[in-house]
């Protein structure tokens, strides 16, 4: 049960259980996040993906063993875990709406050498809007800001929760490209409903159902298997019968082509 962590993983999760509002939403979850590339954390709505991420960060009550870069972190408080080198892009962005764009980024800076240029180059929109209140940004711009907050530090892992949720197709592809760029230098655990984005970014997948891990493997193996996709995700992954979430990415790709 307590399989030794492969040496090439940045994060190992062993027997993680978590509660939200007294209800068990993550049960005995174990998986590894490789030290390079994008690992997708998949599953239908409500299976516990967000809770798993929040459990890793200690944002919700949880137990289990968490090893990050060789160090056990499950007893550390959230800010200490993050200081070890984790960037977090939460579901629904959670930018500080009453703070300006610049203040949101400044707040996120953990060292005296923030990577401002990198963020400015990735998201030129944010530079123009530095003085604007984050609450007045569009959904896409807020997502850029949320990503910017995670990328402004040199992290050893990014936890990114549904970054394309609710975004227009053209923005979905921008976000995916930014993540692809980031993934060149930092491993990412990515929760994503849009299978086209998963296909573009992820090498590995972990699938949750009912708060448990039901599948781990290569992304390509899962995505190429119509039966597996239907069984685990309840959507059709084939381009011939696009489910709604898949359709948006398809058109985004067409737009870029």
């Amino acid at each position, binding site marked *: 049960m307590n399989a030794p962590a492969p040496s090439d993983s940045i994060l190992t999760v062993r027997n993680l259980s978590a509660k939200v509002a007294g209800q068990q939403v993550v049960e005995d979850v174990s998986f590894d996040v490789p030290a390079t590339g994008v690992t997708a954390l998949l599953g239908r709505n409500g299976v516990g993906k967000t809770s798993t991420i929040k459990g890793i*960060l200690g*944002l919700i009550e949880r137990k289990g063993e968490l090893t990050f870069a060789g160090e056990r972190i499950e007893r550390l*408080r*959230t*800010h200490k875990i*993050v*200081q070890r080198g984790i960037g*977090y892009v*939460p579901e629904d962005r*959670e930018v*500080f*709406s*009453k*703070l300006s764009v610049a*203040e949101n980024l*400044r*707040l*996120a800076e*953990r060292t005296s050498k923030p990577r401002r240029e990198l963020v400015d180059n990735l998201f030129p929109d944010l530079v123009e809007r530095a003085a604007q209140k984050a609450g007045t940004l569009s959904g896409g711009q807020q997502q850029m800001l949320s990503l910017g*907050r995670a990328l402004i*530090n040199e992290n050893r892992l990014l936890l990114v929760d549904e970054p394309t949720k609710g975004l227009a197709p053209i923005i979905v592809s921008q976000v995916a490209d930014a993540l692809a760029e980031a993934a060149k230098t930092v491993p990412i655990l990515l929760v994503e409903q849009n299978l086209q984005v998963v296909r573009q970014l992820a090498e590995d997948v972990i699938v949750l159902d009912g708060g448990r891990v039901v599948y781990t493997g290569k992304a390509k193996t899962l995505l190429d298997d119509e039966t597996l996709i239907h069984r685990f995700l309840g959507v059709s992954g084939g381009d011939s019968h696009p489910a709604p979430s898949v359709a948006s990415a398809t058109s985004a790709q067409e737009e870029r082509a």
Partner: protein
Amino acid sequence: MSTIVLLLITGLGLGALYFLVASGLSLIYGLMDVLNFAHGSFLTLGAFAGWEFARRFGADSWGTFLLSLLVGAAVGAIFAVLTELLLIRKLYERLIEQVLVTVGLALATVALFEGIWGQDPIYLTAPAWMGGQTNVLGASIPNDRFLYIAAAVIVLIAIVLFLKFTRFGLIIRAGVENRSMVTALGIDVRSAFTLVFAIGGAAAGIGGVLASHYNGYVSPYIGGSLLIFAFIVTVIGGLGSLSGAAIASAVVAVLQQFANYHWGIGDLVVVLLLAAVLLLRPSGLLGSKA
């Protein structure tokens, strides 16, 4: 006309005292969701500390008076920080326990103050100018009122500058909006909690010294009576909103003065205003939290 000016300025003077208490209440609630019923005790201890200092160094001198404000601020801040570290820190997210602990602390400290300084009011001396009057548009305004207004304005400006231009201020503003996201950016939000208690305690301590001059005496009870109005002001302004607290302090106190002068029902009017705001705008004038 002169009556209006008189009521307006004396109302603002009273509102200044409300604000010095309400600013801390509002910041503390905004960041930590803590209703601090012990805040009146910060004020009372600040008042006694200011008086103890002033009576030793010549209470009628300006230098002593100004230093007594600093002493009150320091003692209020230290008391507030100890309260946060020793009692409240363990009880975040536990509303009932917080209320019990802060109410208990308020009752216990009043008893302690009675034990040390007695139950009777202790009358105090102030620089002579404060007892005089200044003519403004035909109205004779007690001089001390200008001082209260000036103190509240300075405290307001200082807090606003602090919130706007320092990293801690940034953390506090962000934390008021979304505390868990602040920790998820790698920031220990608890140090901001302690700091906010210190700021609130310092403002209350200054308020305590000034309130004792407003009343003409110190007693173990001055904190409790101001705290009631400060809570009302905080709710009307919108829990967590500093500017809301500032505006509501002025509005409530001025209304109270007018109603007292004309019909002798100042307190009733304040309670009616509170009821009206709660019915029509439950989150307060500028509040975002319900």
